[in-house]
């Protein structure tokens, strides 16, 4: 199956400095929720603007659903940087403008308002909306016409905890609305970790890693364990051929798949366990490891 988005060595430079986007090759599978991660200034927005045709690439190619991007951009809905709204108009009137430009039937407005749960506020002026409501209106606008690829740039920016939770639920729901692929750029790694199926890590304009999220997180299975005598426990585990490190909490971190196997070994050797858990590496930890490697 062709990818929803493929870029090949995409490069963009502003002025004479280092490239803002440096030979970035993305591969976003269809129906994925792709977390496009990186610190502020890493080049995420610039990359997305290149994909959307808002900026021209210095070199490299972009293909959408196997076609040249210039021809296939009609299948993209987007929310870039901040929600673009006309504050003096109501939410419904804002959507109506885009609906007219896309030549869509009027019922599309109710459909997208329902998806983002904004139907009740549709007739209120956008000037009175909270930031979370504006973000949802921006997403509703991006959803008009059932785009096959939805690009959301920092959709949780500036939201309060409730707004972030609502946005997370909305992002999880979106793929259920049809054959849609979602690219969500963010610097909030923990948020992306909760919704993404795939991730790409961008650092100083370069793509450091791109992978399925479960493969990235599952690739470093470990068991976190603590006993009354850590040095002795470490010796036992090391003697049994396990690699042992110290976790951030000070416990022993054992490179192993099965906590039961570790527990059985330690108990057999007379150790009393005070803590045993499967250690799930965080996306944040992986991100920082890759940044450190790149440096």
């Amino acid at each position: 199956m062709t990818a929803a988005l493929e870029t090949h060595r995409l490069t963009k430079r502003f002025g004479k400095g280092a490239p803002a986007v440096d030979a970035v090759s993305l591969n976003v599978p269809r129906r994925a929720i792709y977390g496009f991660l990186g610190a502020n200034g890493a080049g995420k927005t610039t990359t997305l603007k290149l994909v959307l045709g808002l900026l021209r690439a210095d070199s490299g190619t972009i293909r959408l659903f196997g076609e040249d991007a210039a021809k296939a951009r009609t299948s993209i809905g987007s929310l870039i940087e901040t929600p673009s709204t006309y504050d003096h108009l109501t939410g419904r009137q804002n959507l109506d403008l885009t609906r007219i430009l896309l030549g869509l039937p009027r019922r599309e407005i109710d459909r997208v308002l329902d998806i983002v749960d904004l139907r009740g506020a549709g007739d209120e002026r956008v000037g009175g909306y909270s930031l979370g409501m504006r973000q949802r209106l921006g997403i509703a606008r991006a959803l008009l016409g059932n785009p096959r690829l939805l690009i959301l740039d920092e959709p949780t920016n500036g939201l309060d905890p409730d707004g972030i939770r609502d946005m997370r639920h909305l992002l999880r729901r979106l793929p259920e609305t049809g054959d849609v692929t979602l690219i969500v750029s963010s610097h909030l790694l923990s948020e992306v970790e909760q919704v993404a199926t795939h991730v790409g890590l961008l650092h100083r304009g370069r793509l450091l890693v791109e992978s399925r999220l479960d493969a990235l997180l599952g690739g470093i299975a470990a068991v976190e364990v603590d006993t009354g005598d850590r040095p002795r426990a470490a010796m036992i585990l090391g003697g049994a051929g396990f690699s042992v490190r110290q976790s951030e909490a000070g416990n022993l971190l054992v490179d192993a798949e099965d906590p039961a196997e570790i527990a059985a070994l330690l108990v057999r050797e007379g150790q009393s366990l005070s803590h045993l858990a499967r250690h799930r590496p965080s996306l944040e930890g992986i991100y920082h490891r890759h940044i450190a490697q790149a440096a």
Partner: protein
Amino acid sequence: MLHRYLIAEILKLRRSLALMLCVAAPGCVALLGTIIAFDKKAPVNLAAFVMTGPGIWSFVMLPLAITALSVLMAQMEHGSRNWNHLLTLPGARPHVFLAKAIVMLGLVAAMSVLLFLFLLGGAALLSLLHPLGVTGHPDYAALAIRLGLMALSCTLVSMLQLWVALANRSFVVPLVFGIAGTFIGIGTFGATKAAWFPWLLAAGMLSPRPEIQQLGWMLGGIGGAAVMAAMLLHLSRREA
């Protein structure tokens, strides 16, 4: 596709400051003229009354209204970075800017029509209420033609102003550009080549010399079309 962009541009004006300005600017001119006429301690000559409106209009209020209008229309898009949305939609980019230019020219024409109607209303009020009565018969046909030619001749300034406003995210640049143009026009009025100055083309319609009037609407119209074409070319190719 252009018609969709035109409809969208017109719908954007609902409850907007731009639309309010289009009523307020000619309204102020007509109101000012009427108040001054009411204050006169002699019967009001209606023919003179209806011709004072175009004077204030063409020298000061029209160029300033065009400045403010261009800023308000452009800020609707700059303010919330609406370009990021508009320019990613399918459809030819020049249509986005062409629709804006057409609506801007339409609003300038609408302001001229409103000024005509407000002056008509002012003359009717004076006829009814001025304590010393009125004299003279206003030539409304001549007034309509004059205001129409003024609207045509300010096409050049409208397009220059819109170009500057759309190309600059800051509202200060087009504001300074427009105010400077207006006041340079006032300051240089009467100079030998002043009739060629874009901000004075509309005022040229008040000249008794037909060649000055012709220069005004021809340069304004043709120059405006040329500037519009250049603006479309520039803005459509620009990165957002």
